[in-house]
C-alpha cells in the first residue's frame, strides 16, 4: 500500500497549501461578505501602510521590473522606509507577461494581503484588467509604466492613477517637433499591438497636423519579429526622408542594429519613441544606436538638481544608470508618500483625495510634473544617443516643453 500514498499526499498538500493560506488570512472567513479590501487599516496617523508592488519578475518584461523595484527601494531608503507617519511594508507580486498572471497577482494582493495601495504594472492589458477590481476594493493603484490611454480614459476610475506616460503623448511630441523641422515624408513603424497602434496614431496625427506627410507605415508582428529586413526594404522604396518607430526590449535591439546593417542609418535618419534606446537595450545595440533621436519624459542627462542627486544616489546604490522605468516607480513612491503625509490615513478615499490635491511635483528627476486626469502632464525631451567615453547615453537635445494629454 505504501508507495502510492506519498504521491497522493503530495497532491493533497498542493491543494492544502492554498486553503491553509486562506484560512489564515480569512478574518471572519468566507467570500460572501462585502469586500474588505485594505480599508480596515485606516486610522489617524502612525502605524503601517501595506503597499503591493506589482512588477514582472518572469518573462520578457523582467528587466523593467528590476529597474522599477530599484527605483521604489531607493526612494524608501532615502526616506527611512516611511511615507508620512507610516512605516511602509512592501509586498511584491510577480506580474508576469500579461493579464493571465498579472490579474490574479493583483487579486491576491487585494484580498489575501489586504494591501492599502498598489504600485507598478508594466503591461497595459493587466492594468486595464485590474482597474475594476481596485475600484471595487477601493484601493488606489498608481500605474508606474503601462501607457495605454484607456487606463485613465475609457477605464478611468477615481482609484487608478499613473506616474508614467501615455503612448501617444510621447509620440505626438516627436510628431510636432519633426513637423516644425520640416523634415519631409516620414515612414512609421511599430509592433502590431495596442501600444504600437496608439503610437502610430499619435505620431501620425500630430505630424500631419503640423503639415507633414507620412511616406508609409508598417505594423510588424508583435513579439515574433526578429528580422526586420522585409519591412526595411519597404522603408527604402517609400522615398521616406526619416523613419519614426516604436520598439522596446529585444525588438528594439534587433531593429536598431538591422537599421544600421542594412545601410539605412546613414541615408534615412532614425527617430523613435524613447523606449527604443532606454535601459539595457542601449548597451546591446552598441554603436548602431549612436545618433538615433528619441522623445521621452526622462533622460539621465536632464539638467536639474533633483536629477543629479537621483542619478548619483542610484549609481551609488546599484552601480548602473537609472532608467525611465526606475524613475516612474521612484515618482510613484514620491506621490504616494506625499499623499499619505497629507492624508494621515491609509483608507483608499483619503489617499485618492490627497493625490488629487497634490498639485505640482517639484522634486522629480524628470522635472516638474502634475496630475491631469490622473496621469502626468509633463515635459517631453528630445534625446540623442551619444557615445561618451565608451558609455552610451541619451543626451538631451531639447526640452520640447510640457505636453498635454492628447
Amino acid at each position: 500500500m505504501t508507495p502510492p500514498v506519498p504521491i497522493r499526499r503530495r497532491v493533497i498538500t498542493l491543494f492544502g497549501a492554498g486553503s491553509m493560506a486562506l484560512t489564515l488570512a480569512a478574518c471572519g472567513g468566507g467570500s460572501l461578505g462585502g469586500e474588505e479590501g485594505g480599508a480596515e487599516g485606516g486610522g489617524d496617523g502612525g502605524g503601517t501602510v501595506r503597499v503591493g508592488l506589482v512588477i514582472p519578475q518572469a518573462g520578457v518584461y523582467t528587466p523593467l521590473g528590476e529597474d522599477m523595484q530599484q527605483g521604489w527601494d531607493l526612494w524608501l531608503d532615502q526616506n527611512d522606509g516611511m511615507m508620512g507617519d507610516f512605516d511602509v511594508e512592501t509586498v511584491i507580486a510577480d506580474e508576469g507577461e500579461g493579464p493571465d498572471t498579472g490579474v490574479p497577482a493583483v487579486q491576491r494582493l487585494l484580498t489575501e494581503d489586504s494591501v492599502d495601495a498598489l504600485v507598478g504594472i508594466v503591461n497595459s492589458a493587466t492594468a486595464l484588467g485590474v482597474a475594476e477590481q481596485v475600484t471595487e476594493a477601493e484601493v488606489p493603484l498608481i500605474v508606474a509604466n503601462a501607457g495605454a490611454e484607456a487606463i485613465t480614459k475609457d477605464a478611468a476610475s477615481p482609484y487608478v492613477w499613473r506616474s508614467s506616460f501615455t503612448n501617444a503623448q510621447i509620440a505626438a511630441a516627436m510628431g510636432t517637433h519633426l513637423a516644425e523641422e520640416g523634415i519631409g515624408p516620414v515612414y512609421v513603424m511599430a509592433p502590431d499591438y495596442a501600444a504600437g497602434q496608439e503610437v502610430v496614431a499619435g505620431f501620425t496625427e500630430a505630424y500631419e497636423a503640423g503639415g507633414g506627410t507620412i511616406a508609409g507605415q508598417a505594423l510588424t508582428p508583435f513579439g515574433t519579429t526578429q528580422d526586420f529586413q522585409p519591412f526595411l526594404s519597404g522603408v527604402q522604396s517609400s522615398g521616406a526622408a526619416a523613419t519614426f518607430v516604436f520598439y522596446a526590449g529585444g525588438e528594439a535591439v534587433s531593429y536598431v542594429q538591422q537599421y544600421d546593417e542594412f545601410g539605412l542609418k546613414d541615408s534615412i535618419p532614425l527617430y523613435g519613441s524613447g523606449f527604443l534606446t532606454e535601459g539595457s537595450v542601449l548597451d546591446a545595440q552598441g554603436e548602431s544606436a549612436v545618433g538615433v533621436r528619441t522623445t521621452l519624459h526622462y533622460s539621465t542627462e536632464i539638467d536639474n538638481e533633483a536629477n543629479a542627486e537621483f542619478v548619483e544616489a542610484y549609481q551609488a546604490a546599484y552601480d548602473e544608470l537609472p532608467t525611465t522605468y526606475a524613475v516612474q516607480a521612484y515618482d510613484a513612491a514620491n506621490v504616494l508618500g506625499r499623499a499619505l503625509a497629507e492624508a494621515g490615513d491609509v483608507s483608499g478615499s483619503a489617499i485618492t483625495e490627497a493625490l488629487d490635491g497634490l498639485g505640482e511635483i517639484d522634486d522629480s528627476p524628470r522635472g516638474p510634473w502634475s496630475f491631469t486626469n490622473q496621469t502626468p502632464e509633463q515635459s517631453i525631451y528630445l534625446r540623442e544617443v551619444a557615445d561618451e567615453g565608451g558609455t552610451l547615453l541619451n543626451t538631451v537635445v531639447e526640452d520640447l516643453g510640457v505636453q498635454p494629454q492628447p
Partner: protein
Amino acid sequence: MLGWFDANLVSILNGFAIGSLLFILAVGLSIVFGMMDVLNLAHGAFFLIGSYLAVTFVAGESWGGFLTALGVAALIGLLAGGALSGLTEPLARRPILDQALLTLGISLIVAEVLSIIYGNDVFSVPPPPGLAESIDVAGRAYPAYRLMLIAVGLVLALVVWLVVEKTSIGALVRASVADREMVSAMGVDNRKVKFAVLGVGSLLATVAGVLAAPVYGARPGLDETILLLALVVIVIGGRGSVRGALVGALVIGQVESLGRALVPDLASFILFGTLALVLIVRPRGLFAGKVAHS
C-alpha cells in the same frame, strides 16, 4: 517583371539566408522526430543555449571566440542529446505526447536556468571579424554575415544528406527506423543508434544557436519563437526527410522575408496562414519522408 525582381532582390536573398538558418535549426529536429519518433520540444531551449554560449565567448569579437563557442556548443549539444536519449528511453512504449510533456518540462527548466545565469537582459552578438561589414548587393547594403549563413546552410545540407543517404551509418539509422527488431537481431544496439541520432540532432540545435546569435541575439523567450518556427518547417517539409527540411526551411525563409515585404499588412497572419494552407492541400506536408507513411 524585371523591375519587381530588382526591387525585391534583397528580400529574396534574405529569404535564403533565413532559410539556411532555419534548415540548420530544423534538420536536427526533423531527423530526431522522423527517425527516432522523439518529439523534442526542448530543441528551442538547446538552440538558446548556443546563443548564450556565443554571448559568453564572442565578447572579444575574434574568430577564436566564435569557433570556441561553436566547439563548446557542439559538445554541450551532443551531451544534452545523449542525456535526452537516456531520459526518453523509459518512455519508448508510451504515447508520444508523454515525450511532449517531458521535453517541454526540460525546456522550461533549461530556459529558467539560462535566465538565472545570464539575467533577463537582451544580448546582441557581433559577427566574427571580416563579416561585420555590409556588402553592396544590387545597390543596397546587405550584411556579409548573412551571406555566409547561406553558404554554411548549403554545405551542411549536403553533408547531412550525404551522411544519411550515402554512408553505412546513415543506412544503419534508416534501417533501425524501418525495423528495430531486425537491426538488433543483427547485433546492433538500438539504444546506441538512438543515442547517436539524438546527440547529433541536438548538436545541430546548439550550433544553430551560435550561428544565429549575430542575427537574432540572445534573450529570454527566443527559444519558444524558434521552436515554433522549426516545427512549422518540418511539418511543411514533412518530417524525417533531409530534403523536406531543406525545402520547408527555404519556403518559410521566403515566406518570412519576401512574403512580409510584399504584404506587410498581413505579416502577422502569413506564417501560420501558409502552414494551414499547406496542411489543407497536402495533409502530410510537401515531402513526406518514407518513414512518415507508416
